């Protein structure tokens, strides 16, 4: 059995569900309570890939951008991929993702990434039209409409990222 580790950073505006997504992915739990993340919260999860390969994802849940301090770019160093998260009930969070992605790509180069349009369970408050969604899919590769609350698409999205990282960083294992 081959064991690899990869650092993955989760980027997005505050309260879009970054922490909740990790919590769902790692511990299969969800909490309605909002607790602001400060700095970075680190969790790990092993994902099994094809060919009897296990990839240890080290998930860096990086605090959302805020008015007092921008994202701490030191946290992003050495990442192998990004999980970009936006909140479908606040369409403005999509442009935050756009900015974060540009800044991190500028600094650390282009990396595999998935885009999570989160809170899919809140259909009544949903602000992103089908047309907007279609355009998102053109702009970002691997767009997933997810819900940390119900768990919809979370594993699929993160699993996909794991595959992409493995293909890029550990090609011999494939």
């Amino acid at each position, binding site marked *: 059995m081959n064991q690899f580790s990869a*650092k993955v950073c989760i980027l997005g505006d505050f309260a879009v569900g970054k922490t909740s997504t990790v919590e769902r992915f790692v511990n299969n739990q969800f909490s309605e309570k909002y607790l*602001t993340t400060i*700095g*970075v919260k680190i969790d790990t999860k092993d994902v099994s890939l094809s060919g009897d390969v296990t990839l*240890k994802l*080290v998930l860096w849940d990086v605090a959302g951008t*805020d008015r*007092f301090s921008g994202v701490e770019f030191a946290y992003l160093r*050495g*990442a192998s991929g990004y999980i970009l998260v936006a909140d479908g009930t606040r369409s403005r969070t999509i442009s935050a993702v756009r900015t974060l992605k540009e800044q991190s790509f500028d600094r650390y180069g282009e990396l595999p990434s998935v885009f999570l349009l989160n809170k899919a369970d809140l259909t009544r408050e949903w602000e992103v039209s089908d047309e907007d969604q279609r355009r998102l899919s053109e702009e970002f590769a691997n767009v997933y409409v997810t819900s940390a609350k119900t768990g919809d698409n979370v594993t699929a999205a993160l699993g996909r990222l794991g595959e992409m990282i493995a293909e890029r960083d550990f090609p011999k294992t494939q």
Partner: protein
Amino acid sequence: MTFPESVRSYLESDYSTQRRPFCFQIDSDCRVLDWWGDADNYGLGGLTAGDDMVDRAPFLIGHLGADAEKLPFVTTGNGTVEVHIFPEGDRYFVIVMDASDEHRFHQQRQQTANELRLLHAAQQRLIARQRALIGDLVEAKTELEHRRKEAERANESKSEFIAMMSHEFRTPLSSIVNYADLALEDDTSVENIRKSAEAISRAARHMNRLVETVLDEARLEAGQVRLHETPFELNRLLDDIATIMAPLAAEKQLSFGIYLEDRVPEMVVADDACLRQILINLLGNAIKFTESGGVRLDVSWADDVLRVAVVDTGPGIAIEDQERIFDAFERAADTSAGGTPGTGLGLTITLGLARLMRGEIDLVSERGEGCKVTVMVPAPASAETPAEETALPEPAIEYRAMRPATILVCDDDEDLLALAEYYLLRAGYGMLIARDGREAVDKALAYSPDLVLMDINTPRLPGSDAASELRAKGFKAPIIALTASDIRKLDMKTFTNSLRKPIQMPRLLARIQDHL
């Protein structure tokens, strides 16, 4: 500045009490070499040299580079720490320090700020939704108001229509009532009864036409009228139209003309009855509303579309009235202001018929400038040659004239004259017309007709006197009396025979044959 040993150790102990630093040294494969400090505080107790630190300190992944690094708030399962990484040759010194107090402080401050921002976002969303709701409400209200107004307008139009119809009906109805009363008076003359009956018949026919018009409109609106597209001779239709319209125009001393472009094909395929109705309506309207000048019908044809334009020099239609003039139950000419009364249905029917024929109507007019109504209907040219026979029913073969003969008809009833003319001419007889007894005597003596049909109640000289005078002057040909009164009162030495009104044309023709 150099610190005394006491100050230095105080600072050191205070710093280490608060930050509780833990240091460890790793090689480039992330294996621990040695360590110092409070390992248990960070869940790193029980280390053995050579342990792989990737699992126990996952934050190292990706951060073992050439430069020193500081990661301010790193939260793992064992609390929040500040991490410092110093590369030293092929090793790394890592220092972790407790940052939970500072983290808590920042967390609380940021929590409040973020919750406020979330609240604000939720508020914005509520406001937006409220705005949308208000928008919907206003729209719904406007729509309702619009519907209410339309219903009111429709109601008004219907009332106006009923008022108009009762006005239209009142004239013929009052003449029916009056003439019926006159006929029923004890001492009324036969002539009065006849006159009354004629007037009543006229009024009834007029009312019948009104009802027909309304029914036509209703049928059109209900979509019950079907198109019957057949090849027909356009000229013949226009001749008929001229026959109907020219006298109406002449009565009002208006000029009337039909102008046919050269290109117009002889035969076209369309519903001729529809077209006929459209032309009668439009020309009838034009003549009705025009007081001086004239009415013209221009007919042209191009690309399988027949274009008929009725142009008049009447009062015209104000721009603001033009849109609704084709609405059922409405008309532009205001009867209240003394305009010519009449139902507005004619135009609605015209529009309905034009649409039925898949055509269009175009109206160009201005107040005081006359009016031009153009109807365009698809009417492809037909290769068929015009049929020779007339469209009207022929009299039955047995009533055809046996030999050439001229009949003199004396009557003052135009309807009867027209009817007699139609049947006599088509049966093959020549015909002379006299509208009173005097004229009948003069024409009979001048032209020696083969037979005379004589109405008894003729103006100037009563029919019976005219007949006696003719006999006295040696007129030998048969004279057949036409009368609505008792035949027994007639002098049968003067008259050869008699027919009772109302006259049935086959019987008239049979009677004529009997005496020729």
